[in-house]
């Protein structure tokens, strides 16, 4: 049996030093990984909270949409039931009932259209930037939603001016804002457009009673409606849609009180060169 090789103290010291170093490095890695895991956990918790909020908003939206759909359906179902079992006594009465059916039918139609528009815009809304003739876009919007009989929209639009934007979306925004002015406001109506190299500002105003202060904080939320809403009710989704479109175009929309009375909706859009 050969004698056991003798290990020098220097060799032992070197080995000890190497092992210490390895262990030190390993501890560093463990610490870093722990720290990263902790951060990842925080991010995950945050994402979870955001998802829960989103889910809740969606659930609320669906409940509200169902509520909004049920209201005209109630009128339609009840009225057709009554018409069938108890025909109106006069032609005028029949006309009244038919007008009501038509009104509620239109309301359902508009609501379904806007819901589909919003659904189509879930996630990212498609935007097609092209050269848009401002005066032509305004003209197209006014043709799509002409002012009520006996009224007009005063337009202040520079002729021959073009901007880089999305024509269809621009018209969609104008159509919604004009429709709201006719429905909730009162004449004189006005539509102004200004532009420069960087941005484009649209202003739609009326001189009606103005926006109910109680609804202002939620004005652009789905189905926000004032206590003073009268006449034919809208879908409750128009301004939500406007905001979504404007944001997809990289702009902003806001409301101001009009002087001396009424509402004023302003949209600023980038002029995308």
């Amino acid at each position, binding site marked *: 049996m050969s004698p056991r090789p003798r290990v020098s103290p220097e060799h032992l010291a070197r080995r000890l030093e190497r092992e210490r170093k390895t262990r030190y490095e390993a501890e560093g890695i463990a610490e870093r990984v722990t720290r990263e895991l902790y951060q990842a956990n925080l991010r995950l918790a945050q994402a979870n909270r955001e998802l829960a909020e989103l889910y809740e908003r969606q659930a609320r939206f669906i*409940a509200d949409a169902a509520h909004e759909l*049920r*209201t005209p359906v*109630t009128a339609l179902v*009840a009225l057709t*039931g009554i018409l069938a079992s108890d025909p109106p006594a006069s032609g005028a009465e029949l006309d009244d009932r038919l007008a*009501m059916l038509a009104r509620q039918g239109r309301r359902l139609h508009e609501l379904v259209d806007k819901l589909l528009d919003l659904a189509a815009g879930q996630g990212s809304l498609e935007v097609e930037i092209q050269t848009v003739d401002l005066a032509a876009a305004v003209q197209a919007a006014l043709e799509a939603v002409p002012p009520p009989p006996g009224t007009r929209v005063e337009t202040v639009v520079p002729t021959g001016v073009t901007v880089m934007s999305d024509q269809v979306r621009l018209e969609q925004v104008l159509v919604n804002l004009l429709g709201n002015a006719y429905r909730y406001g009162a004449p004189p109506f006005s539509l102004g457009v200004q532009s420069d190299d960087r941005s484009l500002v649209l202003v739609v105003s009326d001189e009606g009673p103005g926006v109910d202060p109680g609804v202002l904080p939620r004005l652009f939320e789905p189905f926000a409606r004032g206590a*003073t809403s009268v006449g034919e009710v809208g879908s409750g989704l128009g301004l939500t849609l406007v905001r979504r479109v404007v944001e997809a175009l990289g702009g902003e929309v806001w409301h101001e009180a009009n002087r001396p009375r009424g509402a004023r909706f302003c949209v600023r859009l980038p002029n995308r060169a």
Partner: protein
Amino acid sequence: MTRTVVLVEDEPDVAFVVRLALERGGYEVVEASTGEDAVALILRRTPDALVLDIRLPGIDGWEVLERLRDVGALESVPVVVLSAHATRETRDRAARSGCAYLAKPFRPDDLVTLLGKVLG
């Protein structure tokens, strides 16, 4: 004697058809389109029954019930809650408040039948 029903509904077209149905059922209908008006109306004159929409501008239907009950104005007045918010929560709340419940949309005859039942 004709029995009087207070109908609280903010949608004019819905109010119109409900009124038609109730009148056909032999009731006299008094309408209010807001919660505040309903409270004032009932405090002036107690009806035989109350048909109450829940979502109203201003104070809602639940608040109407609370205000009237706080002053004992609804004793022995049956209440039918109408709601387009057809959830279990609304139904349960109506039951807890001692109200009959009818989800929108409903057939007019169903309302008349239900009202007849709660009025005994």
